[in-house]
């Protein structure tokens, strides 16, 4: 048996070329995911129907029973609905990735001379676009049921910026999940309880002050609540710098931690 010739490892390509390739690949992958999304509009429709039902339920059915001192309930409610819609939307990232995993597309991607991170970055970028659409729709729905930002449009835009930043970070958390579960159903099943817990222990729909102390302790120290609190501070024109920083810190931390974890999981899938 002749020995396999030992070939020296190819020197790494210049960093700039690698970066350019990664960016183009990310654009191509996210273009693919966005196309998939438009060809399969049910997913987008369901992503907006659920928060819409929540708006109607809480605005008209439960809202009368929830007293928030000093503000109109619909103005209190909508920041919570924005957070809720992107939090549930993030599960879609895990579902989509695990579908690609099961179909064998991720194996094909691993055998292509493409950038590794682009597979994940392209997915989260497309989901960011999807979240923008969902948030825009919810803004319209909110407006229709009487939501007006008391502190004006600029404050509202800043609040929505926080929502989008959180949406992007959370979609990386669900990237890691999507790569670890066996199929889309499992991704859905694992994602929903987590998001449920985060959304409904936060003050998204009900003031935290009305919750028992032990629940408050958890509910007020998690990222969805931090987001909702910061949104409200902006929308109601209160001093917001502290709350905004906390929310951004959550989003930044989640993004860094889960992007690193997801990339690690993805590159180690060949083991």
């Amino acid at each position: 048996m002749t020995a396999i010739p030992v070939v020296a490892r190819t020197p790494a390509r210049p960093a700039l070329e690698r970066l350019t390739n990664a960016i183009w690949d990310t654009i191509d992958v996210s273009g693919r995911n966005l196309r998939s999304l438009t060809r399969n509009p049910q997913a987008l429709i369901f992503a907006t129907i659920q928060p819409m039902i929540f708006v109607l339920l809480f605005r008209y059915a439960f809202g009368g029973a929830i007293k928030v001192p000093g503000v109109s309930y619909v103005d209190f409610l909508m920041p919570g609905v924005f957070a809720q819609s992107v939090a549930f939307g993030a599960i879609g990232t895990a579902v989509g990735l695990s579908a690609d995993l099961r179909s064998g597309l991720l194996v094909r991607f691993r055998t292509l001379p493409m950038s590794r991170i682009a597979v994940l970055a392209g997915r989260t970028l497309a989901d960011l676009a999807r979240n923008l659409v969902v948030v825009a729709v919810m803004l319209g729905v909110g407006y229709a049921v009487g939501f007006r930002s008391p502190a004006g449009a600029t404050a509202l835009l800043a609040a929505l910026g926080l929502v989008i930043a959180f949406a992007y970070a959370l979609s990386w958390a669900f990237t890691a999940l999507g790569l670890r579960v066996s199929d889309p159903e499992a991704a859905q099943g694992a994602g929903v309880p987590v998001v449920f817990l985060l959304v409904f222990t936060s003050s998204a729909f009900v003031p935290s002050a009305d919750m028992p102390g032990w629940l408050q302790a958890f509910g007020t120290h998690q990222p969805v609540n931090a987001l909702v609190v910061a949104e409200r501070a902006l929308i109601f024109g209160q001093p917001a710098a502290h709350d905004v920083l906390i929310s951004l810190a959550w989003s930044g931390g989640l993004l860094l931690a889960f992007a690193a974890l997801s990339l690690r999981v993805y590159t180690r899938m060949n083991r």
Partner: protein
Amino acid sequence: MNEFAIEAEGLRKAFGSVTALDGLTLRVPTGSVVGLLGPNGSGKTTTVSILSTALRPDGGRAAVRGLDVVADAARVRAAIGFAGQFAAVDPNLTGRENLTLIGRLSRVGRRPARARAEQLLDVFGLGDAADRLVRGYSGGMRRRLDLAAALVHRPPVLFLDEPTTGLDPESRFQLWESVRDLARAGTTVLLTTQYLEEADALTDQVVIIAAGRVADTGTPRQLKERFGTVVFTLDFAAPADALAASRLLAAAGYQAEADRAGLRVRSDSGSGALPGLLRALDRLPDPVSVGVREPTLDDVFLTLTGQVPASQGGIPA
């Protein structure tokens, strides 16, 4: 130019406590078509996954065109095409969009990717369906598109993992024809299959693997002659003829059993034994019908491993 496009030496891979590859060694001459044959769980998919850089070996080494599949994975990827067991195409894109996407991600360039997609759609008979969503394609069309996707960057080395499993006969023949065309154009092909018939139709060389090791290597004909048992069935007009025939054949050294007017004769020397067998029966009335059952992979496998092929399910890709 390397003499061998693909070389693997002592490949080992385990998934938890399950050993998938246990020191697999093989070489694929440049420009040839080699078939990896073995039952489920024998390590076929694991082997092509490692060679196509989708999976890392636990031990041993492998090289494609002299490039190490682990240390030099990026350059290996530029030289290979890979089509897995399932059509890995996006059902929500059109055929054209799928090929263009894979072309871009394979660094073909944006404009050439479009031109190449167009060309491949034609070659694979998907021109009319090019702008339809893949979710409306038949299984055969998806497989052809999947094969086309593996070819967008004109790879000199191609890996196909059970390319025709689950296809109807017509789609299977079309795919075979495509593989033959590629081979004629000089592409080195390593394919896995469970069908001896497929290896027969396509490959220059067959590597039989069992329990993660190479059990034997040879041309399909050599293997069948070496290990397969051909069974001839002869039907006569009358049971008396069958009985007489079985006596004549036994005297001539054949293993024959008569059953009423029928006769089963086993031959270890391939179907080429038929003329001799018929000559031995010259003095009897001609049989009404003669059947030949060629050896199957199961026969070869049974002989090589002494056990019934284990169906323990596939090894995860």
